[in-house]
């Protein structure tokens, strides 16, 4: 199990907040994602850059849903590998731009 932790970086692009995710978004790390990202970006347009994300589970998907429910417009970018597969299986690929 590599990159045990989730690291979250922030940026700006075209008026949207870019959230760079690295590592794992799972049951361990999604509470932190929820607290931090939802607290910070609620209501804003958010681009989730998943280029560095290796792993996502349903807990991570739930966190993204919570973010949307907070009023944010969420777009997902650069998902690869297992992360892309998970998003597709759960129809989250509609968020991919």
């Amino acid at each position: 199990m590599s990159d045990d932790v989730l690291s979250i970086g922030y940026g700006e692009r075209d008026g949207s907040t870019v959230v760079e995710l690295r590592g794992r978004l799972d049951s361990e790390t999604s509470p932190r994602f929820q607290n931090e990202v939802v607290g910070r970006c609620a209501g804003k347009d958010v681009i989730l850059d998943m280029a560095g994300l290796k792993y996502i589970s349903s807990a991570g998907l739930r966190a993204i849903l919570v973010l949307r429910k907070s009023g944010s417009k969420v777009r997902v970018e650069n998902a690869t590998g297992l992360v892309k597969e998970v998003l597709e299986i759960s129809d989250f690929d509609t968020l991919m731009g």
Partner: protein
Amino acid sequence: MFIPYLEPDDITFEILWILFYLIQMAFTGFLMGRVLERRYPVPIAIGGWVVIVGVPLIPAILTMSGVFGDLDYNLFDGSALVSINMLFMPLTIAVAAFTLYKGEVRSRLTVSLIDYVAVIVGSSMISLGVVELIDSYFAGNTYVDLMMCAVAFGAITVLLMENRMNDELRRFVRESRGYAGSYMTATVFMAICITGCLMLWLFEQGSGSGLTSVICIMTAATFVVMIRVMFIGISGVISYARKDAELETARSLQQSIIPDGRSMDWMKGVSIRSVMEPAREIAGDFCDFFPITDRRVGIVVADVSGKGIPAALYMMRCKSTIKDRMMSGAALEDAVTSANSSLSEDNPTCMFVTAFIGSLDLDTGELEYVNAGHVPPFVRLSGDITRLDGGRGPMMGFMDHRYTSSKTTLSDGDVILAYTDGVNEADHGGCFYGEDRIPGMISDDNDAGAIVDSLHSDVRMFMEGSEATDDVTIVAAVFRKTESKVFEARRELCPDAVSWVSERFDPVLSMKAELVTEELFLNIADNAYPNGDGDVRITVARSGGNISISFIDSGVMFDPTAVSNRNDGVPLDEREPGGEGIHLVSVMADSMSYERRGDRNMLTVSFKTEKEEDRDVR
């Protein structure tokens, strides 16, 4: 042959008579069947016989007394009556047989009945031939004709029937006399009626020669014997059929309680297959497999002395006693010693049982075993085929003994092949199957089912044409090295479980394995134990081109494979949280199976390790 006795100018009348007899005989047969089946009490049946035998006499008597004027059909002089009676006797028997066995035709019984009917028909044909022959000498003397016919028919029937009865049927006929006794009244009554009928006819003939009288008495005696034999035979067949049906039930009951190994597939770590083929309907052999704990399997292969019902009864006792003691948590030696003491008590008939009893630890591959006078199993240990020679003790059931066990350690792919002496002592014309061919069966096969099949079919081929003299039991167990760990079902331990599983997968599949583990572990942690703490055992097993992860918990019943994806097609904003995980697992895994066994949920998720799968990217 009876046609010459009929005046050919009134064909309608003849046909009516024949129809009348057909109906009478069919009814007789039906009643015979019902009585033998005990659907009617004997007094009512006797009344029935009186009607059946009496009614046909009425038109004959009426005709003879001139009620129909001077009609002088030979048909009514009694000779035709008797000859038709005899000719239609096969019909009576056939209908009786049909009434009896309709709906429960059993193969062996069918053979006996076909024999039966063949004998009757055959003897009729032969007796007709004999009579035709004699007829040419006595030029139409119906009286002699008929006597000869009756004697020939009766004698041939009795002889052929006795000859055709197989040993088993004969034994049952002998044993069922008491049983058949209640029908004897009816039998004797029928014999008396027919004899009376004959006498009536003889008086009508008015012939008083000595020869006639002798032949007459012979005929009557033959009828009595013939009918008696028929009845005893039929009673025997019925009794046989009953026992046959009971044995059939016993057989399927026995087969259903003897596991074939599939029920242990959930254990992972060991693949067991077996076959138990009784020499007779039911066997004294048995095998048994059961989980002693989640990671320890009990394997028993045993052979009770003798065969058939006594052996089967003792076998049931042995099976439950041995399993019971092994499940008690005692050490194997103590369990076997205690089972032996129990089986030795209250055993006045001195039955005994030989048994190979093993306890296999699926985590370490350690096989502890005791051999109570049984033929030592073969094993393939890392490719070397030897025998499990240790753990010897006397056969169980007749004296107290302190058994000691032996141990050996299996590694991945090792095979145990145990059997009973029905295999090595399979007999074909005095030659035994022996043991030389057995090691070849496990030289390179890794599939327990294939090993059992190849040995079983080889033994069968060897015995081709010979009757099985002993029950044949074959058990093959293939050990699969698996890894297994018990976790407390708590959310905080999810990362531990995920990394434990991940370490056992190669990088290609490790991410999927992690996802599956996380989703299923959390599902169990959140839902399985609403009233407290519990465990989940995770097992990783490889076999063939598959790697699987099993989750076993003893929480509330939950079948993830039966959960539909409630978010399918639902827009993201309208989704309820949850339910996504199971859907992810079911799509990610190559297969997912669930079983509720006792109080346990067992969920297995497998992946193909072969490279052929390039999952379709939607």
